[in-house]
């Protein structure tokens, strides 16, 4: 065991994967010598050489397209997109190629790539360093979407993603790289070292994709969330004393429907929390699924607490962020309804 923050855990995941499988390689803008603008790949070039950890041209479509070709050859490419906001130029290679290759070739060719990308706001990054585009990927058949919320999960999920035979988009909540930010932006954020999930095995382990974690048991309401929002939810629930069950989805697709349904059937209420814009965000799918599976158990309308349907505004960041107050009000509503 070692103490790791989220960046260190992610770094360690790649290190372990590269150590175990010489076909694993990492690349992306500033990923090689410098080790990534968030330092997630620091040291990997030194350890594994330039052929396995390298910088790339600034071309997200090329990064993903080249990764697909490498994967078709037999490598296990782990590509970094510097910010999730910059994944769109690479979307076609993800949607039309990586996601479709196994299907269209009936399994002859596959594209087991991992695309890692920091996402979400809360760092005053303005509208092009704060986006949460995860729901788009969940709409694309053939892609798995994974979002960790702790160092421990990040490492185990990333290793699982690298070992997975399918393309995986791995979004890293950059706001919690250094500590489990709970949305109270006026307070000093605790470092990960104070959090039990910063105890991370140094070696290999996996957290299976498709399994949610019930991070808090409760009986009054189910809170579905992922990434940074897990900490926001836990903070509010604890501080305001709700007997809420908080489920960290960890994998959006494939979704752990069993955990969700079991919980909502138990609590009869459901609140969905994410940072992405509301309309057609992943909360919509969650809401639809919950009402399809738990209609007769629901005692109140399912509530979505999300980013607003605007770009992420630089100076009004904290008004935009679905933080403790908004969540607290929504919890109150869902409990009273």
């Amino acid at each position, binding site marked *: 065991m070692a103490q790791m923050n989220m960046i260190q855990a992610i770094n360690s995941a790649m290190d372990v994967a590269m150590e175990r499988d010489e076909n694993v390689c990492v690349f992306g803008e500033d990923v090689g010598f410098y080790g990534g603008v968030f330092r997630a790949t620091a040291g990997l070039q030194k350890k594994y050489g330039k052929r396995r950890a390298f910088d790339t*041209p600034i071309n997200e479509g090329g990064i993903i397209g080249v990764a697909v*070709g*490498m994967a078709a050859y037999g490598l296990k490419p782990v590509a970094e997109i510097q910010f999730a906001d910059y994944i769109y130029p690479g979307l076609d290679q993800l949607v039309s190629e990586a996601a479709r290759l*196994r299907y269209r070739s009936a399994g002859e060719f596959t594209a087991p790539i991992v695309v890692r990308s920091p996402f979400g706001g809360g760092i005053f990054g303005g509208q092009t360093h704060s986006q949460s585009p995860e729901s788009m990927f969940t709409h694309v058949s053939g892609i798995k979407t994974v979002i960790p919320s702790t160092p421990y999960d990040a490492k185990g999920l990333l290793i699982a993603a690298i070992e997975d035979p399918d393309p995986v988009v791995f979004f890293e909540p950059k706001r919690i790289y250094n500590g489990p930010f709970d949305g109270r932006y006026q307070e000093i954020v605790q470092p990960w070292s104070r959090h039990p999930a910063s105890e991370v095995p140094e070696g290999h382990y996996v957290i299976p994709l498709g399994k949610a974690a019930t991070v808090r048991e409760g009986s009054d309401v189910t809170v579905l969330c992922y990434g940074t929002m897990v900490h926001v939810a836990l903070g509010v629930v604890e501080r305001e004393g709700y007997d809420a069950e908080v489920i960290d989805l960890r994998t959006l697709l494939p979704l752990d429907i069993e955990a969700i349904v079991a919980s909502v059937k138990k609590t009869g209420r459901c609140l969905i929390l994410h940072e992405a814009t509301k309309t057609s965000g992943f909360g919509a799918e969650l809401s639809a699924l919950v009402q399809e599976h738990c209609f007769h158990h629901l005692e109140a309308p399912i509530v979505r607490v999300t980013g607003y349907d605007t770009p992420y505004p630089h100076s009004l960041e904290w008004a935009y962020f679905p933080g403790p107050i908004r969540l607290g009000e929504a919890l109150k509503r869902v409990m009273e309804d």
Partner: protein
Amino acid sequence: MAKQEARSNLPPLDLYVPEPKFRPGDDADFSDIVIPAAGETRRPDIADDHHTMRDLSYGLVRVLDGEGKAVGPWDPRLDAETLRKMLRAMALTRAYDQRMFRAQRQGKTSFYMKCLGEEAVAVAAAFALDRDDMCFPSYRQQGILIARDWPLLDMMNQVYSNKQDRLKGRQLPIMYSAKEGGFFSISGNLATQYPQAVGWAMASAAKGDTRIAATWCGEGSTAEGDFHSACIFASVYKAPVILNVVNNQWAISSFSGFAGGEATTFAARAVGYGIAGLRIDGNDALAVHAATQWAAERARTNQGPTIIEHFTYRTEGHSTSDDPSQYRSANEATDWPLGDPIARLKQHLVGLGEWDEERHAAMDLECAEQVKVATKQAEKFGILGHGLHQPLETMFEDVFAQMPWHLREQQAEMLAEYEVAKAKAKQGEA
């Protein structure tokens, strides 16, 4: 800042919109196309610096002269047996195309695309590559599969989406995939294969392999962002890849000017990226072979990528959905100054005394027969729209390696629906 007043003297700007020289009703006249004599373009050493060969992007590598003689430094000096094999692969490609096109017209499938007039581009290249070099083709390089002796039957099964279709009826006809044939799964999205080929080549290089990659796209597709991605990555990492641009003058109804073909050659893109570039006569199988071999040698010796522009002509419509008489002159195809690749290679072989009209006629018959036999077999396995050739549940397979719950659920739903449909159909009968 320059004075504002100065400007008022200026004539107004105007938007230039390219226009092909000939439209329906015009008598296409290609006499202004500059065609260097066969043998004229120099052949640099493969170890030469790409900067010393920029001129090759503006030339036209040609081996076969007007009489069908192979001349000049690019003559690949192939033995007669290889030449005959190449000729046969081209002829078979043409026969196959003809039959499948007709099959579509007969309603046996939904769609087809010929490569008439461009057979050399794919076939001669395949002969210059190793069997295990990986090809990332567009939809117009069926000739590669045929050159690699891939079973026509397998190809037809795909075109018919029938029971034996290895792709389980999932792909539009002609979107083949043949890993064993070194033939990457064709995508409907133009140019996406380009960076993939570069990635495959980079992987091969990173692993110290000796296999290289080759990819093809149309001149129209070079406008896509993926073309740029591929060229940048290929240039930066000196990827062992051959980037073929098949300039057949048309992209559906748009002439090559809409891909930038008026301003310069497509081979000149290579100059822009600091890549070796060759512009070659795509209807000259020997030129295609020689250029491919040269580029392959460069790739295999870590000299990096080569862009080859194959100057050719799309003799037929874009696909079975297209009617070229709507947008181009009727005589373009017949008057194309670089002739027909099969006729030219035939003439060459005849000139060598290694071929004659009788053998050619016999070969054509043989090809037609081979296609006929395969067609019969294939049609036994079904044609599109006549019966359900794929078990319904296969629709949910291969989305992921393992089927997740939501797909299993949907699969069950669809099978239940099918039972209802059957019941309803029975009711209807009763």
